């Protein structure tokens, strides 16, 4: 059963990854991915992220369940932050435990590709010069990445 959270506060990526292997002897690999806020060459002051409460968690859990059904994973944790996030801060974590690295790498990559296109999150950039850019959602490139995994949408 996956752990899925949407929260304003930061997370401890190392502790979250370690927790997947704690007190068990069948885990041979833990792969974790952390997405950070970058400053876009010094132009970005912060990102503002919002989500659809309830649906975002449900979609993240659905994506995690698909990864669990597809690969022999032993644990999944996905955390996505919302609110104001400044360059250098963490935005999203995906961590997957498995007996072997192949499944853990593949499941973690699929989770990120799906999360970016399926979970209802929006972001907008607040620039250093004070300009607030428009809201953006999943990009075409993310859709193409997700399509590699045969995304099924209603």
């Amino acid at each position, binding site marked *: 059963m996956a752990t899925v959270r949407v929260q304003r506060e930061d997370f401890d990526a190392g502790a979250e990854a370690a927790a997947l292997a704690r007190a068990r002897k069948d885990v041979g690999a833990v792969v974790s991915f952390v997405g950070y806020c970058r400053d876009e060459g010094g132009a970005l002051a912060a990102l503002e992220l*919002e989500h*659809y409460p*309830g*649906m975002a968690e*449900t*979609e993240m859990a659905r994506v995690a369940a698909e990864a669990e059904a597809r690969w022999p994973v032993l644990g999944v944790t996905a955390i996505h932050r919302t609110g104001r996030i400044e360059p250098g801060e963490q935005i999203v974590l995906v961590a997957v435990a498995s007996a072997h690295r192949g499944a853990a790498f593949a499941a973690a990559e699929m989770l990120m590709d799906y999360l970016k296109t*399926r979970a*209802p999150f*929006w972001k*907008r950039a607040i620039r250093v010069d004070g300009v607030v850019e*428009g*809201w953006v*959602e999943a990009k075409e490139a993310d859709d193409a990445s997700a399509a590699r995994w045969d995304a099924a*949408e*209603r």
Partner: protein
Amino acid sequence: MKLIYFAWVRERVGRSEEELDPPPEVATVGDLIAWLSRRGEGYAYAFEKPATVRAALDRVHARHSAPIAGV
């Protein structure tokens, strides 16, 4: 039906949610977007590019061809 708007749709429409009762000929998500776009200037602006609007029915992603009956 209860409609909830996010991000730029919310800002252009000028509200985060509302209860509306579309007429029976509004059968799909796409019909609903077209109907909403005729409700005023903010709505027209919010839905000026329908293809860029993502929708969910009962918190599940839905294509613009999805029927809204029973939601």
